[in-house]
Every structure is written in C-alpha cells, then in structure tokens.
C-alpha cells in the first residue's frame, strides 16, 4: 500500500491537497483535502441585519466576492420583497462580468497555462511567452477595473447594496469600459484559440451530471431563478436542496454534495455544456468550431469553456453598457419595511453554481445557508482523480499520477476559501481484510448481500458465499434477487453496515480477498453499474457511507466459469471469519 499525494496544491486559491492510496493494482482511496480551518461564516451572519450580512458573507472568498455579494443581495431582495429598477439589474450584470473575466483570466493564464507550457509560474513563463503573459495580465487588469468602477474596490467592494448602489459610475467611466472591451477583442479571440486548441489528455474521461443556473429569456448568462441539469430536469431556486443536499465528511471542512446519490459538476464546463447553444455572435461560432463530445466527459475542458465564457463577456459588455446608458436617471436605494421572510438567490460564480438562502425574522437574519461551487464539485474532483489514477496505474504510468491529479484539481479551478467549510485527510492504510471485517462488525451487525452472475466479471462467488452463510444460519443474509424497492430505506437509518459479497476483478491472484468502501467502487465505471439497483432501492447516503464490498478475485472473467480451488479456499476463509 502506498500513497501518492500533492500535499500543497500550488496555484489554486486557498490551501488544499489531493492524495491517492494505492494497493497493488487498485487505487483504493482518493481524497481532496482542504487545510483551511472552519470559519463558520453562516453562523456569523445570524443575528445580523440583512445589510450587515451582505457585507460579511462575501468575505468568504476574495476571488468570488462579487458573486457572493450578488447572490446574497438577490436572496435578501427575494426575502424582503425588494424590486430594483432595470438600471440596477444591468449594472449588477456588468460588475459580475468583471469578476467572471478576472477570475477566468487569473485561472487560465496564471494558474493553468504554466502547466501546459511547462513552467512553475506565470513569471518564469513570461520569459518565453511574453505575449501570453501580457494578455493575461492586461485582461485581468481590465476586469479588476470594471469591478472597482462598480463595486468601489478590487476585492470586497461595498458599493452594491440591497436595493441598488451607493453611487453610480459616470457615463465617462462606462464608455471607457465599453471601448476598452472592444479593443480587447483580438486578444480575446487569441485566448479562445489558445485554450481550445490545447491537446488535453484523454484521461480522465467519464460521464457526469452538469448543473448550472438557467438564465432568463433563453439566454446565456450567469444568474437565474432555477437550476438546469444536463439531464434536462430543472429545479426551482427554492428547492435547491433537491440538488445540493450537503453533508459533512470527516476529512474536510468543506461539505460535500450529491445529486440523487451521484456526484455532479458545476462551473464553466457545466454552463457551456448545458447552455452552449444559447451563445451568440463570435462565441457561438467558436462554440460550433471547438465543442465536441469530449467536453461532456473530460473536466480538463473546463479551461476551454472558461475561454469561451471570457469571449461571451467581452461581446456582451459593449451592449450592456449601451443598455445601461439608456437609463439616464440613477435610481435611489430602494428601502423596505419587511421584517420577516425567506429567500434564495442563485448566481453562477466563476467556478459554478452559488446559492445563498436566508430567513429573516424581526429584521435580523435567523438562518443562513450558503452552498458554494467547490463544495459541490468536491465529490466529482475526487471521482475524476480516482479514474485518472486507476487508468494510469493500469497503463503502468504510475509516475504520472501525481501530476495528472494536480492537473484535474486545478482544471476545476477550486476555490478553497469559498468552500466555506473545508480541510484534510490521512487515513491509515488497511491491508488486512480480517481486521477490516472486524472493524465493520464493531459498527454493528452487518447485513450481507450476495451479488453477481450479471456480467462477465463474475464467477458467481458472491451468490455462493451468501447461500453458504444462510445455510450456516447467519442472520440477515440477502440475495441480490431479493432486493426490492425501499428495502434498504426500511432498515434502521444506516446504523447497521451493509457488506456486499461479490467477485471483483482487481487484477490480483485468484482468491485474493479485498474489502473496499462501496463509495470507491462506485467511482469505478466497470463495477459501479452492478450496484446501481441497490442505490435506487432507497439506500441513503448514511447507509452508502456505511457500505462495503468484500470482493474475491476470480480465476477467470468468463461468464459461468466454475469456481476455482483458490476461490473456494478464499470463500472458506470468509465464512470462517464471519461465523466464528
């Protein structure tokens, strides 16, 4: 058993790491670790006025500060029934685009590009790629200027408030932004070309569910009243927990999220996948030129998607400025009298869907829920790293695992501070299946489920094993065929561990016994489909976390192959261990 880890992820925002544990030919554990301590931001806002909340909550993150501000304001305005005028709405869109360009250009040129050009940082990259480095710096500088003009500062600007703005930018300032955006276009096109034509490695590739805001009027954009999924489903903003149902994992101060038991991805790639057809002008042309089926499976294309979004923003800004200038009057800050209410605000932060939800009682915040993009991506980050590590291991390219995981994590552009609650991981390797089994037993009397005879990777040892256990009078042994809807759901809320018995191909010697958390088997495409029927029969997340697979390496992968002597011997050992 050994561990490959990146202890300090460099060139990401915040403090985190990623590690993979390898046992022989199998990757048994992948963890995305956050070293940032808990800040309890949600609790800090309770008891505060809505105005104070809108000032405090964006301090979660420096890079996404305006997205947090925007989401908080949208949620508060919903809760307090504040309606703002079109000019306010348009200016917010403009400031948000500033942040989108700033964050994307920072990520693409400073954090991601050095990897692909082989440099440790943008400054040394500038020695050879002076032009690229300059574009990145200039673009970021322009975007920062947009944010400062509207929000009052580069970071944590306080000008956007509930009901409007403290002060409006002048016509001259807005016209400057417009003309500068137009001047930038050739460099923006260069950016799209650069990042869409990178030869992204084809590992890891796997299907996932994408989620993003559904912008109004069938447009491409960064806010909405509902969530759109790549499955075609939509979720109203007030039901956001249907998507995000956060849970705490012991290895991180970031909460994780699952959609219907499955990890999902948010971010630029999710938006382009879900909304790409809605892009207009040059962005649509570039989308047609570069988009391919691989974008749906490979998280590294997030870089390309971010470049397309930068183009969208630069095309939108001049039009947006014209629309803003049509409103010559600067509306005063909308006041409100409402003291009670609850509301949700959805926006797209640069790295994905961001939800702020508040309940107001007696004019003070009584409940806060903030769901950040990196918390939602955490499960998929781990899953894709797992896939990459396993595939490289299979190809005998173990030496590449570390750098590839680094690349995958960085492609997600994780914002670690943002994951309001995040930290790390090191689990002691457990090699001895007997000890593992005893540990599982300590958690409660296990329920055994025999699985198998469904595909080619099976010799039927799982079912056989279950039948033997039944014969020996072991209680609560089920067969796969006996599993009906909600069977698990009716069991006492996950307090008893579930142990699936199965033939599993670890490319080991026949008869090798391995126990793995079900969680990691689910990340493995060739194994996971076998467990899907169980997942759909009401297995909740608590139970999922408390589920394990005991696998025996078969002699042959051919269907119906007889159980080999070494497998039979292993089965005997398992029965002995369970019944003794």
């Amino acid at each position: 058993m050994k561990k490959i880890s990146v202890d300090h992820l460099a060139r990401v925002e915040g403090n985190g790491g990623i590690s993979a544990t390898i046992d022989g030919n199998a990757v048994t554990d992948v963890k995305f670790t956050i070293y940032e301590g808990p800040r309890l931001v949600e609790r800090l806002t309770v008891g505060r006025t809505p105005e104070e909340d809108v000032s405090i909550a964006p301090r979660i993150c420096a890079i996404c500060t305006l997205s947090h501000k925007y989401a908080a304001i949208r949620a508060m305005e919903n809760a307090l029934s504040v309606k703002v005028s079109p000019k306010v709405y348009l200016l917010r869109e403009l400031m948000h685009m500033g942040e989108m360009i700033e964050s994307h250009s920072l990520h693409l040129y400073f954090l991601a590009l050095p990897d692909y050009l082989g440099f440790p940082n943008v400054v040394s990259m500038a020695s050879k790629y002076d032009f690229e480095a300059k574009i990145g710096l200039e673009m970021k500088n322009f975007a920062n200027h947009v944010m400062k003009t509207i929000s009052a500062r580069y970071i944590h600007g306080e000008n956007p408030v509930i009901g409007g703005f403290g002060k409006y930018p002048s016509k001259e300032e807005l016209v400057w932004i417009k003309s500068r955006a137009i001047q930038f276009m050739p460099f923006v096109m260069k950016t799209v070309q650069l990042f869409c034509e990178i030869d992204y490695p084809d590992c890891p590739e796997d299907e996932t569910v994408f989620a993003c805001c559904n912008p109004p009027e069938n447009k491409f954009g960064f806010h909405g009243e509902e969530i759109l999924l790549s499955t075609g489903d939509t979720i109203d903003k007030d039901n956001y927990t249907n998507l995000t149902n956060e849970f705490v994992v012991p290895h991180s101060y970031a909460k994780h999220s699952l959609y219907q038991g499955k990890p999902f991805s948010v971010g630029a790639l999710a938006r382009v996948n879900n909304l790409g057809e809605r892009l207009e002008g040059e962005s649509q042309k570039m989308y047609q030129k570069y988009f391919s089926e691989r974008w749906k499976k490979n998280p590294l294309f997030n870089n390309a998607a971010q470049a397309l979004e930068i183009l969208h923003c630069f095309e939108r800004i001049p039009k947006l400025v014209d629309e803003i200038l049509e409103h010559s009057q600067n509306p005063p800050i909308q006041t409100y009298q409402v003291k009670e209410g609850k509301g949700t605000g959805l926006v797209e932060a640069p790295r994905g869907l961001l939800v702020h939800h508040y309940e107001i009682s007696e004019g003070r915040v009584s409940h806060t829920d903030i769901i950040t993009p990196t918390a939602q991506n955490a499960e998929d980050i781990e899953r894709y790293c797992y896939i990459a590590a396993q595939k490289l291991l299979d190809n005998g390219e173990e030496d590449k695992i570390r750098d590839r995981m680094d690349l995958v994590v960085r492609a997600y552009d994780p914002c670690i501070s943002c994951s309001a609650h995040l930290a790390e991981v090191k689990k002691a390797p457990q090699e001895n299946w007997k000890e593992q089994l005893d540990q599982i037993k300590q958690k409660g009397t296990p329920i055994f489920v025999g699985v198998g005879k469904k595909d080619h990777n099976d010799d039927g040892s799982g079912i056989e094993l279950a039948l033997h256990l039944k014969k020996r009078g072991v209680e609560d042994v089920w067969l796969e065929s006996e599993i009906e809807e909600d069977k698990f759901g009716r069991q006492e809320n996950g307090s008893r561990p579930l142990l699936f018995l199965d033939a599993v191909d670890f490319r080991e010697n026949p008869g090798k016994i391995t126990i793995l958390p079900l969680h990691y088997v689910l990340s493995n495409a060739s194994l996971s489909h076998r467990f899907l029927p169980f997942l759909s029969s009401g297995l909740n997340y608590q139970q999922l976390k408390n589920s394990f697979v005991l696998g025996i390496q078969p002699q042959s992968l051919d269907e119906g192959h007889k159980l080999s002597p070494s497998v039979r011997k292993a089965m005997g050992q398992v029965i002995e261990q369970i019944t003794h």
Partner: protein
Amino acid sequence: MNKDKVKIGIYELTGCAGDALLILDCENELLDIFKAADIQSFSMAKSDNIDGNLDVVLVEGSVSTEREVEELKDIRKRSQLVVAIGLCATVGGIQARFTNPKEWEKNFKKVYGDVKMEHTPPLQSKPIDDYVKVDYYLPGCPIGKEQFLHLFTRIVKGAPPEKYPRPVCVTCKFKENDCLLNRDILCLGPLTADGCGAACISHNLPCVGCWGPVEGANLTSEYYLLKEKGFDVEYIKKKMANYSGTKIAEFFEKIKEEKK
C-alpha cells in the same frame, strides 16, 4: 539563487485569500515584484516553492486549526521578520467574532454536527500574534494596493515598514466627503484604520470597519456618541464586533470598567 535579494515567503492560513490575491492584482507591478525580491514561497502564484530560511514572511489568514499552529511556528523559526497582512492575520478576521469558547463550540456544532474530523482538529480562530511574535502589521480586508506596495518597497530595501496610525476619517476629510455621522448614519470611520481611501463613504455608504480598529481610537467616545444618537446598544456592539476580531473583547471590558 539570488544572493543579494531579500528572500520573501508569502503564506496563507485560514481566510479568503484576498491578501494574496491583492498582490496578484498588482498587474502592472507584478513582474517587477518578482524581480525585486527572491520570492521563495507563494503557493497561490507558483508551484516551485521552497520552505527554507527567509528574510521576511508575509502571513495572511487566521489560525484556525492545530496544523496551522505548527505551520506558523515553523514559519516564525525560519524567518527574520514576520509581517501579518490582512484583517484575519492582524485581528483574527470576521471568523474570530465568537470570542467566547462556549459560543464558538455551539456554533461549530451547528455547522458540522457531531462529525469527528479525522484530519487536523479545529481551533477557535485567532490572530497570528496569539501564537508567535509579529514584527509588523498591515491591516485591511483585504489589504490595499497602495499600502502593500509601500510596505513591499521598504522591505526589499531593508527599511522598516511605515505605520499608519490614522483613522478612515483622515482620508475622508481630504476627499471632502460629507460626514455621515452628522446625518445620523452609523459610520465606523473614526474607529477604523485607514487604507481603503474612504471607499465606502466616498460611495455614500457608511464605513463597516473592515480595516479593523485603529491604534489609539477612542472607542468609548464613539460608543457613547452613537448611543446619544439613539442607536440601540446591542446593535452598536454587534456592528463594532463584525470586523474587530478578538480585539473587541478588550474594548468591551474597558467600557464595563468605565461604567463602574
């Protein structure tokens, strides 16, 4: 490597990473910043980081886990000068507001429930000078570009950084803003360290206090002034506590004593 250049490390503990980002936001100066000093460690900006002996370290973020205590102590050992940058490092940041350990614990449980963290144990957020000696402070949420460049220029030349013992009101007056307190708006400018260029007041909005308390500010006087203006006492206290971190506790103690 660069023998004659000042060796600098930039480290992030728990916070929003805004101070490190602000340094990257110095787009026009960035290449010069890297040329002027030997930046050995800056994990947000580069991956070839060396954790060796340093002349100066800039530390942002509060200390919020046991791992961070160890990391900070190690940083202190390795460097000649330690500069706390940003609100979280200087006063503990917004997250240091739960100054009472029981209150902190209660709120921690509300967020994380009873899940036992396998990795590094959490700590109540504290400024870095609770654990190590700090030589200089550069406040701000996040730090301001101008003040940072002044500080940076001085340290690469071996000069001690300047102090800014002024409240926001000084710059505000230079900008000829109308005083919001005169209009009975709760503004924390008189208590707050200067450096933002009076950004909020220049946008017709009251100062929220995000630079943290200014040295020598007359907190008691402002407290009674606001009380006289009819603001609710609890509200004033909360407002003052938002960005004062652990330093607010001393202040409330002082008010209590003066009442006696």
